[in-house]
């Protein structure tokens, strides 16, 4: 019997035919999966810039030999190109430089960093003046066309559109730490509308610089356990003290099931559903009763046409902040009820750190690899689980177990909540 190419609501079924990933644990699915299942941490002392005087001096940066002088949008573009190339190659869709669908890119806002600001400041034309008057005098007299194309907010997506030949105007988006999941949502929605048969969904974040570290430190969001970088990210642990910033990128090639089957593509998984609910409580915290997150999770199951009993495993947002992990447990407990007792939940951020705009896409990729391998990556650094978080967090050691479906949570500043559900291809 051939399975329907329409879902329970008569919409086109959306499948994944290509996955690409690059993180502090390596480039490509193979290296990442090996390290993620072995419980390896990619967090280390920051070497990109001097950290003297910073409260947090650790991160999951990605640096490689022969790299250009660090520039945030260029770095995000480089990371995204690697993950997108891997995903497109695996899917075998389109032809080189010609992807047959739209591009949705989750990235941090492109900003002029201190390095570039000082390059401009040191021009000659503005000598004798200061501040932005000096910067603007130097800009008028100089040639900074490259900065112009790099620091537009559309920059990262436009450079990717040039590289991969995606269709139409690309969409650059941000929903803070839920951005990566939003890029997948937008792709799913476009395919369900019948606007396209395929979509390229990218999350990328290469934005670790002094000012970003200080900004998150000011919000008391980051771990300051600088002496033990690899042990600093400890989601669901009693001693957790904040998240660890990290870089990375992942790309999913989404296709309609019908289109993918017609071209004989290998199906890596199905995007069963997505849920979302904005919170109104606070800029950096969830409503104390968890109602917005609970609604997000319930809406994802409703969209997928699935019940709590059908969720085999959860890829947690699990940032390792005291607030997030507590609220995530509260919400899952309310939404899944007693089913949560038998549902393992694992936080990739224990190893990868928090890749911010890319996290939702990276964790979607890991969720799909989990289904394919029948192995759940562990939540590492779980030496003493928070006694108030009563979940099976797959502590420290991977779990070999058949997994047919994974729920992946993403919650961001500004009340952004997204939940995605993936499953294996119908047998």
């Amino acid at each position, binding site marked *: 019997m051939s399975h329907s190419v329409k879902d329970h609501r008569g919409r086109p079924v959306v499948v994944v035919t290509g996955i690409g990933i690059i993180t502090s644990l390596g480039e490509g699915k193979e290296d990442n999966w090996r390290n993620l299942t072995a419980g390896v941490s990619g967090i280390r002392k920051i070497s990109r810039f001097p950290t*003297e005087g910073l409260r947090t001096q650790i991160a999951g940066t990605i640096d490689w030999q022969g790299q250009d002088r660090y520039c945030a949008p260029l770095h995000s573009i480089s990371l995204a190109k690697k993950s997108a190339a891997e995903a497109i190659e695996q899917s075998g869709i389109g032809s080189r430089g010609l992807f047959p669908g739209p591009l949705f890119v989750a990235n941090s806002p492109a900003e002029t960093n201190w390095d570039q600001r*000082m390059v401009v*400041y040191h021009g000659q034309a503005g000598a004798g003046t200061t501040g932005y008057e000096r910067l*603007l005098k130097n800009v008028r007299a100089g040639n*900074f066309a490259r900065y112009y194309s790099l620091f*537009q907010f559309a920059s990262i997506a436009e450079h990717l559109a040039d590289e991969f030949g995606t269709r139409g105007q690309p969409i650059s988006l*941000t*929903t803070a730490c839920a951005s990566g999941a939003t890029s997948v949502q937008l792709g799913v929605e476009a395919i369900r509308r019948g606007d396209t048969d395929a979509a390229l969904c990218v999350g990328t974040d290469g934005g670790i610089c002094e000012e970003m570290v200080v900004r998150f430190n000011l919000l008391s969001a980051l771990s300051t356990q600088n002496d033990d970088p690899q042990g600093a990210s400890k989601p669901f642990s009693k001693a957790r003290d904040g998240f660890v910033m990290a870089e990375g990128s992942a790309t999913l090639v989404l296709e309609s099931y019908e289109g993918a089957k017609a071209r004989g593509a290998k199906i890596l998984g199905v995007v069963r559903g997505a849920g979302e609910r904005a919170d109104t409580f606070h800029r950096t915290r969830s409503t104390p009763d968890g109602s917005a997150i609970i609604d997000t999770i319930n809406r994802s199951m409703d969209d997928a046409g699935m019940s709590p009993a059908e969720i085999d495993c959860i890829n947690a947002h699990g940032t390792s902040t005291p607030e997030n992990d507590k609220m995530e447990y509260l919400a899952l407990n309310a939404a899944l009820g007693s089913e949560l007792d038998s549902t393992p939940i694992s936080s990739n951020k224990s190893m990868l750190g928090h890749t911010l705009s890319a996290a939702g896409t990276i964790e979607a990729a890991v969720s799909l690899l989990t289904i394919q391998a029948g192995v759940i990556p562990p939540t590492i650094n779980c030496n003493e689980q928070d006694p108030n978080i009563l979940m099976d967090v797959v502590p420290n050691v991977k779990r070999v177990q058949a997994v047919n479906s994974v729920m992946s949570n993403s919650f961001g500043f500004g009340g952004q909540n997204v939940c995605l559900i993936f499953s294996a291809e119908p047998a």
Partner: protein
Amino acid sequence: MSIEKTEVWVTGIGLVTSLGEGLDTHWAQLTSGKTPVASVDSEDQAPYLVHKIVDISIDTQIPKRSDQRQMGPWQHLGVYAAGLALDDAGIAHNPELLSATNMIVAAGGGERDLDVDTTIMEKIDGVENPGPILNASLNTELRPTLFLAQLSNLMAGNISIVHGVTDSSRTFMGEESAGVSAIETAVAQIQHGQGEVFLVGGAYIAERADMMMLMEFDHTLWQGEHGSIWSREDTAGGMVMGSAGAFLILESRQSAEARGAKPYARINTVVSNRCNRQPGASREVADGLFQRIADQIPTGPLPVLSGCCGVQPQLQEEHEFLDSLTGHGIDPIIRGVSTLFGNTLEAQFPVNVILASLAISRGAFFDPFDTSGVEKEFSGSPDRILLSTWGHWRGESLALIEKPDVALRGDQ
């Protein structure tokens, strides 16, 4: 299989620009029978001109001081304009409707603290190993609220907090294209039943030296006298930036009718594409976009709101493209919006959709925005208005704002 697409109505508008706040003040200035006068400031960002935002009384839309303190002028303006749109649509303070209202915000970034930047630049200037001093300065000078006020998605976040909009919430980035994509996506979602009500729009504060620097990196800013956008055609070009907060409520016809809301206009067509801006490439893209909508445009006079920002060669190419419509029997009656409003970046397309909706709902088109001779009089009641939006760096789009066949807002 063809599915009947849901009709998309504009049922709420919030507009604040350099010319004023609200539809009536804009209507009065743009239909007085005389050439409208732009509000131009030549001192704030000298040597550049800028269309500064008028004063807004944020207390009326953002009543809590604790909320006001968490934002800068850019987020204040967006949250304020969004509140006006929700009020205008009759959605504000209605928890049931707000919880089913989706949001797509076209956002740039918030204001940097220029004094802090200046202090730090002076401190690390000429220092051999500036890292530790930079770190120490950032630690002491930056503030948590400043970071949140800079975060692009926090305009949407603040709209949720202040106004209670809680269905989906997405923030698109990318200058003029972000405004186009926001409305194009919302229209597509409504047409296909992926939501009934959307709050869509953006805001831009032009009087900011940090943004001036970004735009001037490629020498794209105009430094001459203020004048008609078309008067820059024989020059190397350049743009004048303008401030605006522009939000719309887009709603399915069914939803609007069920709650007795009348439309200003309907939007069924937004098309967009991109190119790498080789000379002639934008024109080629626009020709392709026009082919996709040509069958919806009858011959004869066609009011056009052009987003032309003044950057060359796109200024020339867009004008040539609009003139070429005569080859299809269409007589374009063009208004160069940036002559009066400047380039309002992420807000540009929302502003133009609002102006078009205003003209449709009041049954007349605007006076010519200048005396260049490019902009001809139009005396009838427009059935449809073409919007042409080309970004200063990337992105081309066309859209049609049309008159629905029902009683409109403003009808007696």
